[in-house]
């Protein structure tokens, strides 16, 4: 078994992965997410996003309040698709999308 410090449990993203990503120039949470896959698993970043944000802030020297989270998209918690299946919307509603 090899030694790893895990930042994102869902996607097995390690501290080494995140530090490498920052070292090659990516300094935003969104970039770290896209490069490593961090935050894209079942928990959607509930455990890793703040670590990524703080590592980005430290590496760039930017004040924490200037660091943005990645976009929160539905659903916040896992839900079976079938609960949405009965929610019929009319065609106009669909066409607007």
């Amino acid at each position, binding site marked *: 078994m090899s030694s790893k410090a895990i930042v994102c*449990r869902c996607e097995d993203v390690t501290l*080494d992965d995140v530090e490498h990503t920052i070292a090659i120039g990516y300094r935003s949470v969104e970039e770290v997410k896209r490069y490593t896959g961090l935050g894209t698993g079942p928990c959607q970043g509930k*455990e890793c996003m703040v670590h990524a944000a703080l590592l980005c*802030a430290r590496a760039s020297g930017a004040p*924490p309040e200037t660091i943005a989270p990645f976009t*929160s998209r*539905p659903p916040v918690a896992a839900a079976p698709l079938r*609960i*949405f299946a009965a*929610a019929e919307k009319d065609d106009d509603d669909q066409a607007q999308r």
Partner: protein
Amino acid sequence: MPSSDLRLPHPPRGAPVTLRFEGRDLPACEGESVAVALYASGERVLSRSVKYHRPRGFFCLDGHCGACLMRVGGKPNIKACLTPVKDGLAVERQNAFPSGGFDVLAAADFFFSSGMDHHTMMTSPRALNAVMQKVVRQLGGLGRLPDERPGGPPPLPAVSVRHVEVAVVGGGPAGLAAAATLARAGREVLLVDEQDRPGGSYLAHPSFGVPAADRAADEARAAGVELISRAAAISWFPEDAPKPGAPPGLLAVYTQAGLLELTADRYLYATGAYDQNALFIDNDRPGVLAARAVGRLLSRFGILPGERPLVLGAGPYAQALASALENAGAQVTRVDGIETRLLAAKGHSWVRAAELLAPGAKRAHRVRCDLIAVAALPAPASELPRQHGVPVELRPQGGGFACVVDADGASAIPKVFAAGDVTGFKGPEAARTQGERAGLALARSFS
């Protein structure tokens, strides 16, 4: 790993039931979740990680960490920590071959000992790479499709639509206090909470526990609050209207009865905070638990989580938990994480020791332990308010991206409030106070 039952004599338990765990019968008690019942029986490896197939147990025991997804009742990817036990319920580990206890796919952890580039799935040497390309296809995905149901799929659950004066999301100290305050002021309040029992962070805190949780919930109900448990608010949909002609914007709530499309004159987010891990080597080993998960096992479920626990953290919660564990008979090691640092967890399918670096020491030393309770600052659960447009700010002292609100809990978005740990972690007592104040302000906002 313990083999005997870890249930303490207190508190009183529900009726005994039997779980079917991978073909074996395991004892459980009504009121426990699947994850808790397995823990009490010494079954700690609940899943395998998606890439390296590292063994995983639950971390947060609060429905958020994604580490306890199991196949339950023939359905994949069910959160074992939020699923109540039932007599005869079939529970299996997924994502492992041939079994969760022994998984040959864990070879991925060796092959990619220096990490895996998930863009290419390449490793070296090249011969190994060719083998890996074939194996990789077997590695992907999470779980298998549900068992086929005799008689076809059940009918789709109906969608319900409701409008209330105040919708409160989250049944912890802040949400319950705000809801009770609002109901006493004569307002119609619907509170949705994703857990099977209201109380939120009270239930994880040895100084509060079940009595404080029940008192707060009883007060809210007595004041007239309608409280729905196992109801997770999963999205704010700004463009959707629940009915033709209604103004757009609705809260989607996943209830046990199906989807609830909820709208309200005022919204209060009291969604709390997510448990966070600390960054050390092998911090994902089963047995490295969020301190509040250990608190839940002890205070809510009456289970002695370990005989030699190590508590990592310098704050008041770490102190309270360490004392409570000692009172329950455990031999506790305390590590503040500042002066003395935790470098690594040792052990494979369960933690056996911790590697520590004492102040001024050149070399690490080992301490034997059967549990590492990480009391890191929890991170505000601000996704839903963010979807609703509420601004957030990264506050290291508040645990993460905290909702920006005024002293009354009002956000920059009209009619949208937030209170409790979601505005920056503050603990149960301060969260309750802030919830009460937000409740008063919300009540005033109607006149």
